[in-house]
């Protein structure tokens, strides 16, 4: 792995460097909300998952959901971050109908998780380490709809009070590729941990991106924050657009106003939402309804001991145990479901030390290739891990050749069925009967005396004979046996 070089943007006055920091809002996977017992299930009828606390009825009090705390600590551990045994919930005060209390319970000065770092893989075997500034817990506001009625807005409190983890990066990100890879990696880690489903379409993962530009080596420029990006593609587009906008202003002799902007994916541009002067004064102060959040080191240790294997560890293990390339291992672990699939195949193999690497090639090339082509997801693969393992076993034990295996894969994909039984019933078995192969070999040598004579001087032309034998056996001859026989018959 090599340290990443990042993309610079060309301007009229030379190269510009982007400096990017991100705040990721990740919805915590939990049955109930951060401070109430109401359900967090997605897609319920509006205002059906609302407790008295969520609706901020008079005299209601928040009670911390311990599972959300565990999830935040797990995530912190997954980000190699410092876990703070004492943290404080603060109130962030502002008026908006999506906030029934008139304040959001968040963590301001003392977050539950402190500094950490994430290793982010980029194309071409490059990687970059992105620093984590902090992770804190806070309430998600309600959802507002402004377009259903002509003169009124609608509020759905179902989301109100659901736990969010806000993960703040250091300004270590240098281009859109890194930003996208960073979000992808964070999402992968959280999905492995089961702390956030990472579903950006449902809004489970949203990003605020801070972008500034500078000449390489110059001090930091003034930044703009782009709010609420809900797809990795938009994150990349918004960064590119915003950086170019800033460069244009600076090269025209202007200056950047620190402001909050929104990205409009339809127009592919960012536009101003509010200036620094219009920024809210949130009047943060410790929430007097909640005691400081305190837990012991042993609570953290227990969670640490029960963490699942994370992508970086899994990748290292795949490389070490099965001789996979860094790249292949990286592909397999990027999504938790892919890694789970691969490992299930491994578990079902008759000889995984022998065939583990072949299994990786099959998962990546045949299965992923086919899934991608049809726009399907690994969780909805027509070929099960059991079927794929059987196909690989059949190759590994020499019952079928790799070529036949591809045909078999196609049959299983289209029709399903037990690969081993299919090989039997459709006569796909490799011919290992030496006398049968020998006859074919003899015929071909006899029919091509010139080539047979040449092969002693040009051993690489042996491949031509192998091909001929395989062809006339319908691919069923065992290639190793064919090879051996040819060599002895041709005297090489």
């Amino acid at each position: 792995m090599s340290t990443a070089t990042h993309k610079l943007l060309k301007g009229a006055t030379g190269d510009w460097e982007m400096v990017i920091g991100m705040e990721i809002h990740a919805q915590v996977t939990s049955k109930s909300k951060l401070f109430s017992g109401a359900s967090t299930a997605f897609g319920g009828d509006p205002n059906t998952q609302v407790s008295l606390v969520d609706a901020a009825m008079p005299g209601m009090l928040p009670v911390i959901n311990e599972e959300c705390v565990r999830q935040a600590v797990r995530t912190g551990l997954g980000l190699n971050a410092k876990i703070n045994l004492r943290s404080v919930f603060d109130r962030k005060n502002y008026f908006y109908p999506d906030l029934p209390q008139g304040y959001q319970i968040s963590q301001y000065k003392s977050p539950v998780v402190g500094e950490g770092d994430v290793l982010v893989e980029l194309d071409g075997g490059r990687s970059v380490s992105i620093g984590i500034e902090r992770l804190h817990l806070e309430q998600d506001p309600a959802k507002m709809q402004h377009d259903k009625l002509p003169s009124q807005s609608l509020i759905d409190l179902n989301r109100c009070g659901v736990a969010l983890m806000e993960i703040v990066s250091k300004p270590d990100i240098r281009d859109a590729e890194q930003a996208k890879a960073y979000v992808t990696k964070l999402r992968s880690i959280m999905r492995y941990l089961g702390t956030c489903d990472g579903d950006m379409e449902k809004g489970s993962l949203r990003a605020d991106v801070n972008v500034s530009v500078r000449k390489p080596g110059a001090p930091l420029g003034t930044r703009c924050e782009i709010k609420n990006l809900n797809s990795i593609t938009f994150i990349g587009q918004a960064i590119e657009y915003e950086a170019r906008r800033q460069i244009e202003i600076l090269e025209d002799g202007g200056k950047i106003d620190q402001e909050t902007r929104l990205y409009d994916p339809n127009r592919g541009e960012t536009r101003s939402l509010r200036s620094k002067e219009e920024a809210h004064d949130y009047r943060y102060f410790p929430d007097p309804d909640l005691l400081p959040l305190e837990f012991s080191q042993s609570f953290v240790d227990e969670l640490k001991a029960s963490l699942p294997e994370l992508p970086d560890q899994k990748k290292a293990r795949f490389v070490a145990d099965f001789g996979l390339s860094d790249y292949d291992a990286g592909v397999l672990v990027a999504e938790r479901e892919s890694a789970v699939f691969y490992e299930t195949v491994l578990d079902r193999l008759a000889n995984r030390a022998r065939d583990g690497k072949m299994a990786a090639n099959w998962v990546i090339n045949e299965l992923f290739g086919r899934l991608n082509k049809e726009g399907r997801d690994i969780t909805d693969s027509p070929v099960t891990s059991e079927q794929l393992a059987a196909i690989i076993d059949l190759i590994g034990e020499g019952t079928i050749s790799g070529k036949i295996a591809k045909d078999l894969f196609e049959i299983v994909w289209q029709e399903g069925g037990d690969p081993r039984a299919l090989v039997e019933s459709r006569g796909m078995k490799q011919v290992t009967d030496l006398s049968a192969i020998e006859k074919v070999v003899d015929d071909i040598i006899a029919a091509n005396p010139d080539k047979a004579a040449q092969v002693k001087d040009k051993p690489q032309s042996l491949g031509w004979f192998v091909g001929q034998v395989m062809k006339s056996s319908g691919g069923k001859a065992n290639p190793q046996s064919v090879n051996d026989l040819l060599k002895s018959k041709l005297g090489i």
Partner: protein
Amino acid sequence: MTDLTSLTLAEARKGLADKTFTSLELTDAHLSAIEKARLLNAFVMETPDQARAMAREADGKIAKGDAGPLAGIPLGIKDLFATKGVRTTACSKILGNFVPTYESTVTSQLWRDGAVMLGKLNNDEFAMGSANETSCFGPVGNPWRREGSNTTLVPGGSSGGSASAVAALLCMGATATDTGGSIRQPAAFTATVGIKPTYGRCSRWGIVAFASSLDQAGPIARSVRDSAMLLRSMAGHDPKDTTSVDIAVPDYEAAIGKSVKGMKIGIPKEYRLDGMPAEIEKLWSEGAAWLKAAGAELVEVSLPHTKYALPAYYIVAPAEASSNLARYDGVRYGLRGQGKTITELYENTRAEGFGAEVRRRVMIGTYVLSAGYYDAYYLRAQKVRTLIKRDFEDCFERGVDAILTPATPSAAFGIGEKGGADPVEMYLNDVFTVTVNMAGLPGIAVPSGKDSQGLPLGLQLIGRPFEEETLFSLGEVIEQAAGRFTPARWW
């Protein structure tokens, strides 16, 4: 039959148990007293039907012999407590006709123990006030008047309705809340007993919040024993309030009559204010002498940060209030002002819905939390709070069991007499009581005498955290020595 309303709670409990009278009779006697006392404006909502139904149920249980500790006892409930199906407004226009679908933990424990609800009691709007003059339902009259005067006096606040109703024999006891003195000051103004227990002793769940780190529920009653009986039912850990404390609730009544011999009573020199009326000074000495006569030992103690308590309180409490009251925005319940935009709706709702004192405190609180002012005000006030707490801890570490102080710097005053020009004049009423809230300690106000105009005065005892029993024992000594005081009926 003697007038049932003049019984203490303990006497009524005996009468009910002995079947001398029924809860329905007791309840009817109070309902008719309430009806005749509307001039006092103590009740903002009477619930006679509910009261009679609860009384009948209590009578049934008493007959079956499975009566709870407060079975059949008619109580009044401060309008800050959410009562299921019964309008709850905190005496603010902004809550309009808000009817909760839930019952506060404290009141539900009273009903669990068999008590009967007569109705909802007046209080200062959102408990902000010391005279019960800020209620949207208008001021409450104190049953006490100066000798030879027809001037209506305030009952104190914010639990003015509770104190007035208990003193006027409209209910046998009442719930109240105390953020800076709102139980103890009205108790002192009306010759009733009021205890603010340790912060965390009663659940705050279902009580309209004023200042969360200071608010605490407690009872107002006509005797120390009665207040002990009520607190036992009101107190207790509640998982729905994470600031409530999981410590078993003792039988407070058992502390009544317990010897106070050898107890060390601190007399804080900083509470001897310049210009304090001689009568208060005299009362304080008398109280000390009574405790000494009962075997307690008096020691002078120092609480050096007392003078900063009131200013610090008037930063912390409004700061929390400004945030706690943000939910009254006209969007989901209560009053909704008109507006073309959401900002206009907010502004009009809150301008129409909140009274002047609430608006003032929301403004102060917003200011002290603002960027650039937070450190100078809120943070510094919190530091003062820590110092005040430490003052008390130092005292208790030196073996002091309780601290004796006057409850208020004066007797009750006339409606409209104070704070018109300068709100600080009103705020000074809490000078002896706010320190207790700032430190989270228990404090009890016990009637101890009268001033030259015949108005009641009270003494305050401050205890160690969760040692309310000590306060009941000492309070009863004062009660025994001072006697009980009943106002002459004029309403």
